[in-house]
């Protein structure tokens, strides 16, 4: 896909950094989603989480393709060849799956964040982002619907289910600022016409949307602005384990053709 025509080397580097943060989110969460296959509480959910994983990994692949087109490494090297210190994903997506309520709450919150981010692409001066938004947003509709269904099911599923869901939302809230953390290069993307506004400016709208979605069930979402900064390479030990597992086959022979 063509991207970055007419941009100077510095701006292409900024754009690579931006796309890589989003791709890393999709890659790491996609891997976590895949871990539910054969362990979910219902067989339909084994299939659902496996399908969602397939979508997120495909979106990561498309985004890594853009990084490569901007002069970065190949998608496989980007996905499998980096250590945790090189990863820019939000800490939220690397947390272990925990219980079902945590996985549901995390995905729902992440999907709403992703919805706000990809909506920005519809107004991008880069045609590649507009095309990606159109493809990705049609697929993500099904994720959002899946999340809403489960939030409702757990919230109205009796005391323990509702309690676990609230506990999960609290844990997700504590990590969620990373998704919209202000980053040094954001302004350049806006000035170049690539984004209509800095992604960090979406934070307030993001919090309001989650709160409005969970309030009807008597649930709360109270985010903090602290927490580790995955966006700046500050990760938990669990990310290293995830990357070790995910890249194990690739590392056994990086030049192999599959």
């Amino acid at each position, binding site marked *: 896909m063509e991207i970055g025509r007419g941009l100077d080397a510095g701006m292409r580097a900024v754009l690579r950094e931006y796309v890589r943060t989003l791709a890393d989110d999709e890659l790491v969460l996609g891997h976590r989603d895949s871990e539910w296959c054969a362990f979910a509480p219902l067989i339909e959910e084994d299939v659902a989480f496996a399908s969602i994983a397939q979508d997120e990994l495909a979106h990561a692949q498309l985004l890594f393709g853009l990084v490569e087109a901007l002069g970065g490494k190949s998608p496989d090297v980007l996905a499998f060849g980096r250590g945790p210190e090189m990863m820019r994903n939000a800490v939220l997506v690397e947390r272990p799956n925990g219980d079902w309520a945590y996985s549901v709450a995390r995905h729902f919150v992440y999907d709403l964040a992703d919805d706000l981010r990809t909506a920005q692409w519809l107004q991008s001066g880069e045609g590649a982002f507009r095309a990606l938004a159109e493809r*990705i947003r049609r697929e993500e509709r099904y994720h959002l619907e899946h999340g809403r269904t489960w939030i409702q099911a757990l919230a109205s599923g009796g005391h323990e289910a509702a309690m676990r869901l609230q506990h999960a939302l609290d844990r997700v809230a504590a990590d969620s600022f990373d998704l919209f953390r202000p980053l040094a290069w954001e302004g350049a993307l806006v000035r170049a016409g690539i984004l209509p506004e800095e992604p960090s400016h979406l934070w307030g709208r993001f919090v309001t949307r989650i709160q409005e979605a969970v309030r009807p069930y008597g649930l709360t979402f109270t985010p903090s602005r602290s927490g580790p900064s995955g966006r700046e390479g500050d990760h938990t030990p669990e990310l290293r384990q995830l990357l070790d597992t995910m890249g194990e086959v690739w590392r056994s022979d990086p030049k192999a053709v599959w």
Partner: protein
Amino acid sequence: MPNEAEVRHALQGVHDPEIPVLSIVDLGIVDEIAVCDGKVMVGLLPTFSGCPALGFMAEAVRSRVAALPGVTEVEVTFSLDPVWNTSRISERGRLALQSFGIAPPGTAPACPYCGSNATRVASAFGPTRCRSVYYCDACHNPFEQMKAL
């Protein structure tokens, strides 16, 4: 050397490997075809971004077109411009889906087995990226619908 229409006609013989009754032309993924001095360029529009069948379809296009008389080179490219969506499936394609037991994309599918409208979604996520699972309350059969995208 084949012309564009002949290439398109030949591609009627390339099918979606997961829905073998549906040709890629009727699926609506064949976009531009250009023929120039024995070289044929075929532009395909990817369907669901996580669909593992895309590579197989590209390979099948390559070998099908390469077998046409006068063709010396085949180039297959994928593009997101325009972005494929399920409204690109032809009427013949929708009938092919129906005959295969998959309800075509759209709202509230009728059961492809008994025609009843007493159907409900069992899971939005089916055996492939593009299909949802439904249940027919009239004939008690599960069936699939291609997701609207």
